């Protein structure tokens, strides 16, 4: 009910407001009049109180208020205060309410007017824009029209040009044809003229045309010229085809070789790919292991088959090979891509963990280092202590050193003893060796003496045997004889040669050829007499020399002396030496 009442109240107030709004002016006037009331004349005077009351009551009734103002006395000026006050209060209330609504309405009006202004402004702006765009549009229309015009003219031009081009092309074509025709005509004429000229030349039987050769030459290949026969032409054909065939065979061979090489490369590539792929497959592709297995089986098969048919080099095998290579390649590529991805991921992780991991390790490292420092400090401390201890107990150390020295002294003594023993042994050995060499020399001398004796004996014997002793001696001493025994001067000569040779051998070891050129006859003789073994003598002398040089200075002197004096028995000596050594 109260709600309704309120609503009613509101309604009423609104109504009153509506009604009052035009009467506002009058109200104001009324207020004005009220303020001037005392001066000009009041609404209510003592005379017209009842009329006033009536009027006010009517007014109040018109306002919807209960008419209750009554005079306390029918003609008196006293009024019944309570209803009047109520009415006044009511009126005041109404007035306040009206004022409130008035204010609100004014505010609203302000808002409205401002929004109106805004709208008007935008409106005007939009109008401007519209105008502008309209102008633009018209401009564009204009340009378009112009462009179209231009296009039309250009098209017309193009058509004209095309016509021109066509015309020119046709002209060119006609000219070309004319030219070629002319050229052909002229060429024909020229050919005709040439023909005529040659005919004339033949007819004239040009006497000057001649070859003058002193005598005919043979063919460069030495063959005689052949008659032209069908056989010859056939052979020419055959030769030509043979020639071509050879060339093709050669090129084919080279191609086959190249092919084989390329195939080999492919195979190797494939093998390497498989090798690269196989170990990382299980780890990288755990999920698709079965698939992988199947694929690799397939690969195996294809590889085997390709290997079988490699030699046949048929298309099938090639296809298989290329297919398998392609497959492998794809796998490899996938794998590499995956690895790439992994690597990038790892890198990413690394980057993200960059700050974290080092911190922990840093801690650890610090701890470790501290520990180390501590250890080092302890170590230093211990060393210091030890040093001090050492300083305090230096006397003990001296005794220890003495002891140690004793030991070494003993050791030294022992070594000295051993050294002496060794020296003695060495000396003994040396002595024995010298004895040996001396014995060898003596043996040599004895042998030489024996040889001389024998020679003398032989000579004597021989001289005794022959009756013509004097003559024989002369002939034998003269030179090369057929005798198997050498005469004295010859020996000397050959010995000389040999000596020279020996010296060269020892110093330079010249090759054999020089020996043969030096004294061939004597050496041959010697060889026949088996006095010199072919080349071993030089070798022996060489060896001897080297041996002696190792033995000592005295030996060298002896040997050189013996060589100088008794060179004839050098080989003997050498043999003896050899014996003695062995």
């Amino acid at each position, binding site marked *: 009910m109260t709600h309704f009442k309120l609503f009613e109240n509101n309604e009423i107030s609104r109504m009153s407001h509506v009604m009052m709004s035009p009467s506002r002016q009058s109200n104001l006037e009324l207020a004005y009049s009220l303020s001037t009331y005392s001066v000009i004349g009041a609404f209510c005077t003592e005379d017209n109180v009842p009329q006033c009351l009536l009027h006010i009551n009517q007014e109040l009734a018109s306002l919807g208020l209960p008419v209750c103002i009554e005079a306390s006395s029918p003609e008196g000026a006293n009024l019944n205060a309570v209803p009047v006050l109520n009415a006044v209060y009511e009126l005041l209330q109404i007035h306040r309410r009206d004022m409130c609504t008035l204010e609100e309405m004014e505010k609203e009006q302000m808002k409205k007017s401002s929004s109106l202004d805004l709208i008007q402004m935008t409106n005007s702006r939009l109008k401007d824009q519209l105008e502008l765009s309209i102008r633009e549009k018209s401009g564009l229309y204009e340009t378009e029209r112009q462009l179209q015009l231009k296009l039309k003219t250009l098209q017309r031009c193009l058509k004209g040009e095309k016509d021109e081009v066509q015309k020119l092309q046709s002209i060119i074509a006609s000219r070309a044809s004319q030219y070629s025709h002319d050229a052909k005509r002229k060429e*024909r004429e020229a050919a005709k003229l040439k023909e005529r000229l040659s005919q004339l030349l033949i007819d004239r039987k040009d006497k*000057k045309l*001649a070859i003058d*050769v002193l005598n005919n030459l043979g*063919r460069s290949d030495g063959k005689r010229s052949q008659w032209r026969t069908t056989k010859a032409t056939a052979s020419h054909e055959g030769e030509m085809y043979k020639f*071509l065939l050879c060339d093709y065979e050669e090129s084919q061979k080279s191609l086959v070789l190249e092919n084989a090489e390329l195939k080999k490369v492919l195979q190797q590539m494939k093998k390497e790919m498989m090798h690269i792929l196989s170990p990382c497959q299980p780890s990288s592709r755990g999920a698709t292991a079965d698939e992988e297995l199947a694929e690799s089986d397939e690969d195996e098969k294809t590889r085997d088959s390709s290997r079988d048919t490699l030699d046949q080099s048929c298309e099938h095998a090639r296809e298989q090979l290329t297919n398998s290579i392609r497959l492998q390649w794809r796998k490899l590529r996938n794998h590499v891509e995956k690895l790439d991805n992994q690597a990038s991921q790892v890198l990413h992780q690394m980057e993200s963990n960059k700050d974290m991991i080092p911190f922990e390790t840093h801690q650890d490292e610090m701890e470790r280092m501290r520990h180390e420092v501590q250890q080092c400090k302890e170590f230093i401390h211990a060393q210091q202590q030890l040093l001090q201890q050492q300083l305090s107990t230096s006397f003990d150390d001296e005794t220890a050193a003495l002891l140690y020295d004793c030991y070494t002294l003993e050791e030294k003594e022992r070594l000295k003893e051993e050294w002496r023993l060794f020296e003695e042994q060495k000396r003994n050995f040396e002595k024995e060796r010298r004895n040996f060499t001396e014995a060898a020399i003596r043996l040599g001398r004895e042998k030489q003496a024996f040889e001389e004796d024998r020679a003398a004996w032989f000579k004597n014997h021989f001289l005794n045997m022959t009756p013509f002793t004097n003559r024989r001696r002369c002939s034998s001493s003269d030179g090369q004889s057929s005798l198997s025994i050498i005469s004295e001067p010859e020996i000397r000569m050959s010995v000389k040669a040999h000596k020279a040779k020996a010296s060269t051998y020892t110093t330079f070891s010249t090759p054999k050829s020089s020996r043969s050129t030096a004294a061939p006859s004597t050496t041959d003789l010697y060889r026949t007499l088996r006095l010199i073994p072919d080349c071993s003598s030089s070798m022996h002398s060489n060896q001897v020399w080297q041996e002696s040089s190792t033995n000592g200075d005295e030996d060298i002197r002896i040997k050189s002396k013996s060589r100088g004096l008794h060179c004839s028995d050098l080989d003997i000596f050498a043999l003896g030496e050899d014996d003695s050594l062995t």
Partner: protein
Amino acid sequence: MNFSELFKQSNQLCKVSPDGKYLATCVQYRLVVRDVSTLQILHLYTCLDQVSHMEWSSDSLFILCAMYKRGLIQVWSLEQPDWHCKIDEGSIGLVSSRWSPDGRHILNTTEFHLRVTVWSLCTKAVSYMKYPKACQKGIDFSKDGGYMALAERRDCKDYVSIFVCEDWHLLRNFETETQDLSGLEWSPNGCVLAVWDSCLEYKVLLYSLDGRLLSTYSAYEWSLGVKCVSWSPSSQFLAIGSYDEKVRILNHITWGKIAQFEHPASIDNTKATVYKEVERRPAVPSDELLQHNIKVGSTLLNTKSKYEICAPPIQIPVVKPDPDRANPKIGVSVLAFSSDSRYLASRNDNMATAVWVWDMQKMSLEAVLEQTAAVRCFQWDPRHPRLALCTGNSKLYLWSPRGCVSVQVPAEGGFQVQSLSWHCSGDFLILLGKDQLCLCYMDAEQEENGRLWRRKKDRK
């Protein structure tokens, strides 16, 4: 490097015999044969007129001297100086003469290319080949001397005839797919014949010995085409130089292009070495020196030159050709493979001062030699990868993979090297001046000690 004294010669006719033992030179109407090792005159022959062409027979026993103006040919024998042979082509005239590979026949091309006459020195027999084509290279013998290819023109069509040189039997005669055949050349193995069209059309045809068309190659259309063609000694590559300043290399298996070498005016290839010849005029000597040096003034006037290695980018001077003239000076006109087929030297006509050396293994530019004057002639050493070139001055230039060197020819009287040729052993060079010649002996040690500009190691 040692130089011989100067000898007289005329018409640049100076040739070493194929066996490398003799040196034949023509002086006016005299033919002089010298021993190569001693340079002493062995024989002296007197021809009927001034010699315009001279050629050794393949067995080094005979020398052909052609006197084109008179239509005469004289042949001289080295073994029998009394022996003589004279061939008169008569009133028909003579434009070219050459030996057959067996050295017993002479092929004469008559005027107007009316016919090719084959004279036999063995039998005095004469035979004719009709309709030879007048072109850049219309006759070519295979390297082993077994076959001869002859370009012919009949009824406005090109034909190629292949003869067996042994008895001049016509083996094949086939029409070629050319508009206007310009040249033909056997591959060094003698199995493939390269035929190219005139410059109006880029077309190279490859025929087998039996006349089958193996392949056709055309790089482009509607522009001037092939300028020169060269086989590598291994028969592996066919290099084609064209008017678009490029060299294209065909392979011998598919006959397709495997490489293309361009000749740009600005070189910015860091892998190639650019040698630039730098000339230095000697400082003007003082009066005393001048008086002293009057005798050796000629050598003093010569400018010294050396090579400098330039770092890329480098601008090569380009001469713009006259478009209104026939045979414009543009495009690759000379191509030469080294004896081991490892290098290819080329010259682009509108950059006449530069020689380009290409590495055939890497298929890339190896070196560029920029000279101060236009390159006249270059030739590879027949034994080593070594290129000799001349520019018409008194210097000789050598390039090898190790470096580049310029050598002053120490000859009096302004000897200017117009052309050069190697001896077959690669031991010496014959330098031809205007009317003189000089031998230049290579020395291995000398070359080492010479002004060799080695490549800097830091430039890789």
